[in-house]
């Protein structure tokens, strides 16, 4: 009995020692190395939030590269007071977004977010950014409803689908002159929204259907499209599903043309669909071709990224990152200051030539919005024509 009691006391004593020792040691707190001295804010981080792996990675990678290029150039010119990029790979998946957004908000050094790249993840991540007062500028999330939620941190560097959708519709009506149009969307925030906007312009399509993100077998939809006699198909969604759908359509003998939005506007679309099948597809974008960007952007991009051509929105991403970098240079070291800086900004971007001025709800100044149509020709996405406003 005494032995057992002794053991019990011994156990308690050891436990007490361990806890006491732990509690006594004041934990190391991450000291705040805020920039002191020079006017510019140093050591801050700019987050890129978007799909860097997964089915939609092609789009995210180019935007991240644009951001990285801007930051790298800034760091070269400001070697004593640099900024850092932090990548948040959401895979374009709204389910992965909240954890990453929370991570970004809790890291006080992250002063702004470029992104989220997609509308679905924006719907989920932006409320979290709002609660942390972390300013965001998205180079590509085009769902119109994002600016109606009252998020002061939300800014959009391109036009939204209320311009892109009708523009695509006008192209179908006026340029393709298609009488029978079939509309398919992937039920995502972006795809469904864009398809709705297109339908407003083209009227009642000859048929509509919905598919799922990550769906691979489209045989039911393919049958319906073929039998509807549609000569044009509008697809609202991202390039992997679009590519697979088009491949199966062509395999079933469909001869029509596919039109899709910026979510499909990527070289990977051609890889998934197969060169022959993708030929002639029309892709829109509320942006000018990145390959015709102004200044030295294209050459710089190629030099920095293994001679790759800048993809969709790479130039937009570059320009909006520079907005944040200029803010850092001007000494804006807190999120609140950076937010006011962005809201007051009114200058032309070096690569796109667009004058970035944000309205009260975060939308880009409507006079600056442009929509282009691209075409898949000989295995590459090439610019076709700018779609005029109405």
């Amino acid at each position, binding site marked *: 009995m005494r032995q057992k009691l002794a053991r019990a006391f011994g156990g308690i004593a050891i436990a007490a020692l361990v806890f006491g020792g732990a509690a006594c040691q004041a934990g190391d707190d991450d000291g705040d190395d805020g920039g002191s001295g020079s006017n510019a804010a140093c050591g801050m981080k700019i987050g890129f939030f978007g799909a860097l*792996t*997964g*089915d939609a990675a092609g789009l995210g990678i180019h935007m991240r590269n644009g951001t990285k290029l801007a930051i790298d150039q800034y760091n070269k010119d400001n070697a004593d007071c640099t900024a850092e990029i932090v990548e948040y790979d959401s895979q374009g998946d709204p389910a992965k977004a909240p954890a990453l957004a929370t991570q970004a908000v809790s890291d006080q050094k992250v002063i702004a977010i470029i992104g989220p790249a997609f509308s679905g993840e924006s719907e989920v991540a932006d409320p979290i950014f709002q609660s942390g007062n972390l300013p965001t500028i998205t180079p590509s999330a085009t769902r119109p409803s994002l600016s109606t939620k009252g998020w002061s941190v939300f800014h959009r560097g391109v036009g939204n689908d209320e311009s892109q959708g009708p523009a695509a519709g006008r192209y179908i009506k006026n340029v393709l002159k298609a009488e029978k149009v079939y509309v398919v969307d992937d*039920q995502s925030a972006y795809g469904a929204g864009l398809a709705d906007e297109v339908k407003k312009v083209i009227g009642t399509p000859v048929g509509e*259907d*919905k*598919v*799922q993100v990550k769906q*691979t*077998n*489209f*045989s*039911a*939809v393919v*049958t*319906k499209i*073929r*039998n509807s006699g549609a000569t044009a198909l509008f697809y609202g969604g991202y390039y*992997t599903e679009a*590519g*697979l759908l088009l*491949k*199966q359509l062509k*395999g*079933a*003998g469909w001869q029509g043309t596919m039109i899709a939005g910026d979510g499909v506007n990527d070289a990977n679309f051609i*890889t*998934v669909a*197969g*060169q*022959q099948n993708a030929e002639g597809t029309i892709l829109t974008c509320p942006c000018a071709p990145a390959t015709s960007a102004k200044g030295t952007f294209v050459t710089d991009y190629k030099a920095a990224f293994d001679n790759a051509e800048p993809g969709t929105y790479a130039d937009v991403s570059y320009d909006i990152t520079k907005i944040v970098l200029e803010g850092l240079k001007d000494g804006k070291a807190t999120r609140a200051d950076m937010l006011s800086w962005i809201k007051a900004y009114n200058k032309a971007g070096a690569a796109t030539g667009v004058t970035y001025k944000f309205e009260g709800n975060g939308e880009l100044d409507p006079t600056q919005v442009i929509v282009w149509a691209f075409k898949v020709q000989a295995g590459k996405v090439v610019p076709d024509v700018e779609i005029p406003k109405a």
Partner: protein
Amino acid sequence: MDFDGLLRDFPDLTTTGLEQGAIYALVALGYTLVYGVLRLINFAHSEVFMIGTVAALGTWQAMGYNQNSSVNGVGLTLLLLLVGVAAAVAASTLTAVAVERVAYRPLRRRNAPPLAFLITAIGASFVLFEAVGLFSDNLGIGGERGPFGMVRPFKPAELFSIGGWTITNTQLLTVLSAIGMLIALDLFVNRSRMGRGIRAVAQDPDTAALMGVNKDRVILLVFVLGGIMAGVAALLWNVTYAFSRFDVGFLIGLKAFSAAVLGGIGNLRGALAGGLLLGLVENYASGLFGGEWKDFTGFVVLIVLLMFRPTGLLGESLGRARA
């Protein structure tokens, strides 16, 4: 409910449904054989199918043909088909046997409860498809977890139409192959000596062992047969859809299993009937309710069946109907 759509598309939905159903049927044969003999749902069979598709496309790619190549000439077509079927069958069979050896046999030795078998099957399935998904980039067949494109040995084309019903070459090939393989398998199981062994073990393993049947050899044979069926199904899939992916097996496997149950688990002809029927029902449902309900219907069929008629349409009968 789109009745007009259903009526208008009925011929197409039927032929496409039969085509899809034939593939289900071939995969279902694998499930039904294993279940009939071992009373085990071979979860990993779906990955056996998927690996067959990957092996065929990998071989074609190694020969220099990818999705942008064009195939001219009957000779090349036949060559691709033969090579494809050989690669797919070899890979599927090897995978099936490997799973049996590594995952199931040790459990049989230890007389593990059925729960253990099912869990191991799930584990094997996961290992296989994750491996393909993660390493597909390294294998050069497609991005990580991305879709795999591949060459089409022949262009899908309409062969003939009879009054509104068009039949394409892929459809004809698929359905005929499925029926052909079933007949071959049926003959083998019912007429040959080894087939008798299979039926004996299905009926009563211990008595069969007493009568001199080598249980292990029979079990191996069953997995090999299942693998062959899956390999052929994999080639037909490649020819029809020209794409694959690491997760393509899961849904096909579940539906094939439904088909097996639908026809009567353990019943070979039931597997064919079940597969074709399921393919049709799914397509009709998607025509009626919309494309997004296709998979949902498959599951509804499975659940309703298991709950109300687990013996299926043609009844269980590899050996004889079991309680």
